């Protein structure tokens, strides 16, 4: 874990309202793994007070990439950084995806900005595994496909691809692949992860054996395990919470209760 100030190289708007920030940070680039995150200080002083957590979106040589939209004050400030401005980064944080494991087909499922961690995961898996992806959003303009391989789209209003949510699409399509050894990697809103979790459990009850890792979110104060601010219910012990920042943000779907 490092705390380091690194310069912005470039900010691009990959689609309306979705920003990709390239930061030169060889130290972070060297260490970080897909599914891990960074806790970013968006301003010099203490306004806003807390750091903001962002998934590592991609890594290319010495550069790291963040993907975000303008959500509130913090992301607004971040989107105003100019080339050369220093950004204070704390990370790499948390446990990322376990992508070395034994599987034939990787399934990416991304809801909205849940697309953020996949470019890096794709970079690590390509040429090694087969990958199919499902990306979803309320409407066409909210679907993010940036560096996501082999994708099908679901939109709730039917403005692009399958009409419905991305988990319904997944359920429909996964049937064609159930003979393979499947590992699902998912990131998105809680509701989506919950639906996915139910879906996977159902399939596994039918005797299939899908592995599924989900990347979860929570308000955070520290991001590295000292504040106890980011609990998620442990599925195996009703008296225990996992910490999303330290034990996660990626969990096996069987280990947590959403």
């Amino acid at each position: 874990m490092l705390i380091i100030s690194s310069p912005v190289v470039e900010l691009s708007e990959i689609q309306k309202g979705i920003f990709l920030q390239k930061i030169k940070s060889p130290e972070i680039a060297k260490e970080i793994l897909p599914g891990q995150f960074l806790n970013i200080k968006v301003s010099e002083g203490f306004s806003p007070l807390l750091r903001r957590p962002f998934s590592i979106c991609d890594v290319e040589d010495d550069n790291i990439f963040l993907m975000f939209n303008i959500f509130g004050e913090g992301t607004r400030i971040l989107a105003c950084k100019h080339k050369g401005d220093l950004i204070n980064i704390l990370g790499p944080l948390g446990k990322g995806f376990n992508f070395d494991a034994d599987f034939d087909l990787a399934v990416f499922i991304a809801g909205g900005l849940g697309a953020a961690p996949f470019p890096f995961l794709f970079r690590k898996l390509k040429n090694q595994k087969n990958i199919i992806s499902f990306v979803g959003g309320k409407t066409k303009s909210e679907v993010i496909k940036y560096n996501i391989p082999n994708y099908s789209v679901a939109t709730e209003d039917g403005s692009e691809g399958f009409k419905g949510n991305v988990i319904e699409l997944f359920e429909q399509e996964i049937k064609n692949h159930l003979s393979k050894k499947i590992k699902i990697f998912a990131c998105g809103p809680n509701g989506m992860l919950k639906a996915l979790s139910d879906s996977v459990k159902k399939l596994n009850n039918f005797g299939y054996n899908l592995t599924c890792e989900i990347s979860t979110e929570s308000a955070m104060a520290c991001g590295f395990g000292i504040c106890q601010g980011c609990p998620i219910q442990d599925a195996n012990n009703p008296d225990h919470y996992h910490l999303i920042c330290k034990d996660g943000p990626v969990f096996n779907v069987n280990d947590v209760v959403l």
Partner: protein
Amino acid sequence: MKTIDLSVKIGKLKLKNPILLASGTVGYGNEMSDFIDLNILGGIITKSISLKPRKGNKPQRIVETSAGMLNAIGLANVGLEEFINEKIPFLAKYDVPIICNIAASSIEEYVECVKSLDSENTIKAFEINVSCPNVKEGGLQFGNNLTMVGKITERVRAVTDKTLIIKLSPNVSYISEFAKICKENGADAVSAINTLVGTAFNINTRKPKLSNIFGGLSGPAIKPIALAKVLEIHLSVDIPIIGVGGIMNWQDIIEFMIVGAAAIQLGTLNFIDPTASVSILKGLYNYCSERNIESISKLTGSYILE
């Protein structure tokens, strides 16, 4: 480099410098040790420990506010047994005083906790948390009740010879009355302040942002209040005060010492910059050096009110 004595004393307890890390903002030290050498600190105050493990409140536990944050952790902690078996051995490796913070929902529980921990050599002092705003039993029910705070102090004092610190609630009219009763019942020092009760609501759902509804406000927003509480105590009670609330840099520490703090605690700052103590120590050194203050402890209560 001049030699400046940064050490301070809290009762029998000598600290190499006035910087303590506040309970609940440093866990049990292990994560912080990834960022700094714990040995540079004046001391570490562990997350409130209760007799049994506590799961803590449901999410959401954290809300950011203007220059502050609300937390409603609900004293989530590993409990006495795991603390002794798993956490103390790690802390024992360091040459830094460990102050064990204790939370409880009855006088007996406080006493039992302190008794069970008193023989641990690693623990150099106890900080009794009578002021957590985020739990139903104990917490403010105790912290805002003068008689109860007196009793807790008296009973805990009876079972330990180690330095005894009572952590006071700011959610009272006159905190000095509480400091006074602590002193009368044998406390060696008081910590001021714990968090202030606050809340925040989502205007779309009309629900509280914290599952616990109320939370404790910390961060720079509360600094002026914390300073006033420390000064109020210093003006009327002769007891060492550990200042805490909104400290973000070395200047804030000097300000707390001037109004009466013998030592201070860094809280919320640890979340934002776990390495802060390194630059803060330099700042303290330079401030003293430039003014020929040989011992930083001279600053305590050095206000000039005219």
